[in-house]
């Protein structure tokens, strides 16, 4: 069974109805977190058109994420980035069989409600879009549709889980083609998990309370996570992944799967690259297969990467302190 740590049984997003003799329930933590578990060892690809979504599905993606612009284009365009056109999301939902996700702005409850009504399979409350509320994320327990959130640390991840996120991904630095930040974030989460696990094993409850205060989360979620030794929800890597080797490396660090944003459809060999990144994610621990995957792409076709130290806009900082 699934870890259900932190689940709220009084959540408004849980709806029940009578059906003949038995009750049926929707929006439970088992269903929301369970959905994320079905994506494990898979690749979720950012897409902006029906054609890209079909390329992603044919390449073996487990899901597509619909945006108005790829993160790298959002970066270039500047201004305010909002949720994608509903018509495009619906067209994509009608043309692929895999789950369809879409992004809403951090804290923008009504953008999320629009996506829920559109019937997307998962909502990403994402730092790639311009935050609507710098202080508050969405209270995701109110939704029957599951949410994924970005995190740079265990503290951020647990705060989002307490708000009802059914899945976590690293933030990385979106739209850069630079995997360094994603690596930093997953290593930080792993280190912090090891720290609280060892505190838990030592039986020092006072020190766990100290961690809970530092993380700005409840003692219960820290204790339950420490006991598990991992996040109580699925944890993917995201932000800056551009090549098969990037994907394989993040899988080797213990990620449950991969999100690829600009890396595929901003390259000049999208079809081959989509397929190659899926292969490297699946067979990450077989180095000959990762090499074969890497050989399918041409580095001269990769998106031009950005140095994260000289960026004008650091998307990962958005919503980070809340």
């Amino acid at each position: 069974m699934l870890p259900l740590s932190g689940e709220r049984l009084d959540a408004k997003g849980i709806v029940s109805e009578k059906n003949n003799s038995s009750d049926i329930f929707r929006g439970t933590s088992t269903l929301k977190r369970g959905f994320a578990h079905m994506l494990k060892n898979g690749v979720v690809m950012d897409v902006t058109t029906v054609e890209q979504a079909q390329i992603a599905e044919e390449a073996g993606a487990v899901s597509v994420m619909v945006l108005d612009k790829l993160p790298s284009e959002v970066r270039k365009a500047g201004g305010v980035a909002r949720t994608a056109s509903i018509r495009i999301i619906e067209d994509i939902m009608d043309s692929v069989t895999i789950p369809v996700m879409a992004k809403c702005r951090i804290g923008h409850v009504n953008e999320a409600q629009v996506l829920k009504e559109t019937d997307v399979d998962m909502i990403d409350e994402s730092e790639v879009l311009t935050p609507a509320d710098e202080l508050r994320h969405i209270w995701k327990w109110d939704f029957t549709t599951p949410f994924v959130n970005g995190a740079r640390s265990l503290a951020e991840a647990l705060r989002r889980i307490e708000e009802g996120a059914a899945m976590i991904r690293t933030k990385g630095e979106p739209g850069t083609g630079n995997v360094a930040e994603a690596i930093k974030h997953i290593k930080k989460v792993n280190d912090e998990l090891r720290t609280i696990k060892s505190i838990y094993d030592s039986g020092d409850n006072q020190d766990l309370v100290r961690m809970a205060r530092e993380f700005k989360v409840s003692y219960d979620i820290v204790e339950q996570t420490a006991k598990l030794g991992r996040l109580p929800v699925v944890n993917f890597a995201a932000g800056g992944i551009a090549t098969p080797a990037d994907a394989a490396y993040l899988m080797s660090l213990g990620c449950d799967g991969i999100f690829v944003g600009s890396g595929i459809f901003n390259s000049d060999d999208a079809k081959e690259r989509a397929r190659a990144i899926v292969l490297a994610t699946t067979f990450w621990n077989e180095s000959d297969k990762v090499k074969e995957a890497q050989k399918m792409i041409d580095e001269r076709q990769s998106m031009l990467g950005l140095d994260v130290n000289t960026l004008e806009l650091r998307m990962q900082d958005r919503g980070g302190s809340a």
Partner: protein
Amino acid sequence: MSLTIGVLSIQGDVQENFLSTKSALDELGIDGTIIDAKTPDEISQLDGLIIPGGESTTIGQLSLVNGSLKVLKEKIESGMPVLGICAGMIMLSNTANDKIVGKTDQPLLDILDITLERNSFGRQRESFETEISMDSINIPKFNGVFIRAPSVSDIGSDIEILAKYNDKIVAIKKGNVIGTAFHPELVEDISLHKYFVNLISSLQN
């Protein structure tokens, strides 16, 4: 003799099936090893296999690429017990239609004469939990977790129906092959995994 039970670990919720199978072996007191099975070599040494939930298009395409699809088909046709869950049941079928998109040309194992309707109950918001019964295998009450679940829309005459929900077929069995549209690995009750382990064990003795 010790059993070797595999969970197809191409994609999906492998770990949950691993844990449920482990608990089933422990409770039944049966000696066995559970392995993540991904390569043709790993699959060929199995006494039984679970194809977990995940995305059937992904599992199909990738098991085709590394040659495990062919070995899987041979092993299952030669009598190896298999439990296909959600995407796994889709893999066992000979035809898959999506409720919205229509007929798919995804790679399938073509083991059972059944047609699957993918996403039969709707999208994720419509995913649900409810009590179902599988009386013919002595599991009268089971918490069915249906996540973007398929159902069996067309069925050959030689296939036994284990469970229905709202007139839709959601669990089937033919000989050593079992398919469920719901996820027994996501609930505490391990009775279906125990049934499957017993089935594997009975063939070894």
